[in-house]
């Protein structure tokens, strides 16, 4: 009974404040003492407003030093807020309501104009539908009493992710965009867009009034449309439009939810809906919006199309902002949804989506493609954890969001570095990178490990997903399928991540060492250190801590040995059958044929339709 004394569940709840405490208390002494001591409300307004101010400021005065300082403050603000445990809310106000309605109308009008300009009638039609629904809502629905903004536990985590990771990505993007072949104004605009995106996200995770939520939801759609289409090429435009109309579908779903809620006499406040005002159909429609935003399987194409954007945009979309809305929404609505038949259906969809995405990534030939599919898989896992809705799994969804944000951001930024220094996007051009930039690649290996393996962050989520699903398996046979797909997906993800390594090391002639500028390397270092530190802090109070500590200590010792102690043994050449032949390298791709893949796509489509039909039927019967 040596290990059994420390059980898993006991310490989970203790962890969050401890992590937060150690983080902030160690950093705040040096950086954000002022910030930390200010009131919560000031801090929140700072977080909401400063990205906008910074965006405008950078457009006017493109001073990099000032921007770095402001970004540091922003990140520190996210950290500082993470520590607080008090709740906070901002009540509704007549003026704001009209402002929101005005902005909503403006945005929908803009969508129509965008669709008309490129003659994309799908976008126009969807925007028109939205306008009709919007007008209906504004005419019919009263405001009632409620909170406009609400600080929840999940919001705190999201603010940490958005501002902590997002700030680092923006800091990277400032340098990255310098080498882009566009004029100076465009470069400034690019950074400003990213900052504005952060501002939208900061507000979105606090929104409680549903029309505000809709506005921000569509604003992120707009931001992603602009950013994906930033490189004004044919492919970029097409993919940006696809992202636009797919996400508009999500907007339609949200408006539909509001209308249904009105028909059933519910208010327009999310906390009210979750508390039981709204019927299952409303929540299901919100879930549809989440599925679309989270690029769950029938809707995966917009996220993969987003790869044509400059790399910081991919990093931003995948790690800190856009797609994280999906698990956040699921977290919000899970209490009203988790234990219904529809919830089970959605679990199944998410499990299958995770497995298929991790399988599909095995055929990708670009680094960003591989990362994109892995994002889809892990997003499905996050939503799945959120949907199971036990205290532990909710925490784990948030933990996974944080670790995924850091690991993915690191990997995308490394992809950006490779793109800039070697002008390589395809994996086969990335041979022998390890000898070219060992530290960066060590970071990449670390990030890959942190996304799958013990004792690092994301592993805990994988682990607790299995535990949580096993906890719900009794009497629910379909849960076996969900469980099996999660398990298979986690095995496939290991294959997906680590087959990348084959090329990073593979070279016969050591290539020339590439040194990175500070603008590139400092954000990378921060992200790597952050991921490592968070893992360590997380470990320290987890179950089986000493086992995990042992593993971590071992890895660190090994790394140190590799780095500093060049072992005292003779070096040998590799075995090549006695011949000295030159070898070309590539990596393996795994596939079981296009036909089966196509039928899988049909399966996902059918599941989604079944989900909608079930939701409608249940909604009608209520």
């Amino acid at each position, binding site marked *: 009974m040596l290990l059994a004394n420390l059980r898993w569940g006991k310490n989970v709840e203790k962890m969050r404040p401890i992590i937060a405490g150690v983080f902030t208390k160690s950093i705040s002494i040096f950086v954000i003492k002022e910030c930390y001591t200010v009131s919560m409300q000031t801090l929140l307004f700072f977080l909401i407003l400063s990205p906008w101010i910074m965006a405008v400021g950078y457009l006017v005065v493109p001073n990099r030093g000032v921007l770095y300082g402001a970004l540091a403050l922003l990140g520190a603000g996210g950290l500082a807020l993470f520590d607080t445990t008090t709740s906070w809310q901002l009540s509704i106000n007549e003026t704001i309501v009209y402002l929101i309605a005005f902005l909503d109308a403006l945005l929908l009008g803009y969508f129509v104009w965008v669709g008309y300009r490129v003659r994309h009638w799908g976008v126009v039609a969807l925007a028109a539908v939205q306008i009709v629904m919007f007008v209906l809502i504004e005419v019919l629905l009263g405001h009632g009493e409620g909170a406009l903004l609400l600080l929840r536990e999940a919001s705190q985590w999201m603010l940490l992710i958005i501002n902590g990771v997002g700030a680092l990505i923006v800091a990277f993007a400032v340098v990255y965009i310098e080498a882009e072949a566009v004029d100076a104004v465009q470069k400034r605009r690019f950074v400003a867009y990213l900052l504005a995106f952060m501002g939208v996200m900061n507000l979105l995770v606090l929104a409680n009034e549903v029309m505000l939520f809709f506005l921000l939801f569509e604003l992120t759609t707009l931001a992603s449309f602009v950013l994906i289409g930033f490189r004004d090429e044919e492919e970029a435009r097409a993919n940006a439009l696809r992202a636009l109309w797919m996400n508009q579908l999500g907007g339609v779903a949200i408006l539909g939810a509001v209308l249904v809620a009105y028909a059933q006499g519910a208010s327009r406040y999310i906390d009210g809906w979750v508390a039981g005002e709204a019927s299952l159909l409303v929540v299901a429609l919100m879930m549809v919006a989440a599925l679309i935003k989270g690029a769950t399987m029938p809707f995966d194409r917009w996220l993969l199309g987003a790869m044509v954007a400059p790399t910081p945009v991919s990093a931003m979309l995948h790690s800190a902002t856009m797609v994280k809305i999906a698990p956040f929404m699921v977290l919000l609505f899970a209490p009203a949804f988790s234990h219904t038949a529809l919830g089970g259906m959605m679990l199944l969809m998410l499990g299958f989506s995770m497995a298929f995405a991790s399988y599909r990534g095995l055929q990708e030939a670009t680094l960003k493609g591989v990362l994109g599919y892995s994002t889809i898989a892990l997003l499905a896992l996050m939503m799945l954890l959120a949907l199971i809705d036990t205290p532990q799994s909710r925490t784990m969804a948030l933990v996974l969001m944080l670790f995924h944000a850091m690991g993915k951001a690191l990997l995308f930024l490394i992809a950006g570095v490779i793109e800039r220094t070697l002008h390589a996007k395809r994996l086969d051009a990335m041979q022998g990178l390890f000898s070219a930039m060992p530290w960066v690649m060590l970071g990449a290996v670390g990030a890959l490990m942190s996304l799958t393996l013990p004792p690092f962050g994301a592993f805990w989520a994988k682990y607790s997903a299995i535990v949580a699903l096993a906890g719900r398996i009794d009497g629910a046979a379909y849960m076996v399928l969900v469980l099996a797909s999660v398990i298979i997906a986690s095995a496939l993800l290991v294959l997906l991540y680590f087959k990348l390594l084959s090329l990073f090391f593979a070279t016969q002639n050591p290539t020339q060492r590439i040194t990175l500028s500070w603008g590139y390397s400092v954000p990378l270092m921060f992200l790597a250190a952050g991921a490592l530190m968070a893992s360590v802090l997380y470990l320290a109070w987890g179950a089986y801590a000493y086992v995990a500590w042992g593993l971590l200590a071992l890895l660190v010792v090994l790394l140190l040995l590799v780095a500093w102690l*060049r072992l*005292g043994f*003779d070096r*040998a050449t590799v075995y090549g059958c006695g*011949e000295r032949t030159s070898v070309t390298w590539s990596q393996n791709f795994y596939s079981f044929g296009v036909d089966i893949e196509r039928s899988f796509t049909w399966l996902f489509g059918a599941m989604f339709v079944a989900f909608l039909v079930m939701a409608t039927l249940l909604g009608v019967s209520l």
Partner: protein
Amino acid sequence: MKWFRQWAQKSPWILHYNAGSCNGCDIEILAALGPDYDLERFGVLNRGNPKQSDIFLVTGPVTYRSRERLVELYTQIPEPKVVVAMGACTATGGVFRGMYNVEDGIDTYIPVDVYIPGCAPSPQLLIDGMAKALEIWVQKSRDIEKPHRLFGGIRKTLHYLDRRTMAQTLAQSKEKEPQ
């Protein structure tokens, strides 16, 4: 630790290389690995990998084209290692001696410890040669330049050991222990 050292000679792993032989010796090696002669009862394994082999079992008179591979494989086998030349042509070139593409025996290129005569030597002879090779292997492992302990020699030589330092260490240790 004497027993430990004795244990070592019970595990000879062989690397087989055909340097231009007529296959007669090679099929006899296969036969010897088979159940009737069962070389594995002496711990012999055919690893096929020079880095993990102890006994370099060569057949054939070394053709012009195989000599580089022969030397390459020989250098890849870590010490202590024993070279066994199997068959008449491996020893002297045999029937092929003097042919224009033949280098007349492997000892023109690498030092040979055991010659197994015959064309082709029977498996019994091969086993006999193996036994002899093991004796030599033990002898060589006593005289070998020892690899340093895992982390022991590092500070002394900073980065990695060069052969001269190892030879010096060996000479000093020999002076110390009277034989």
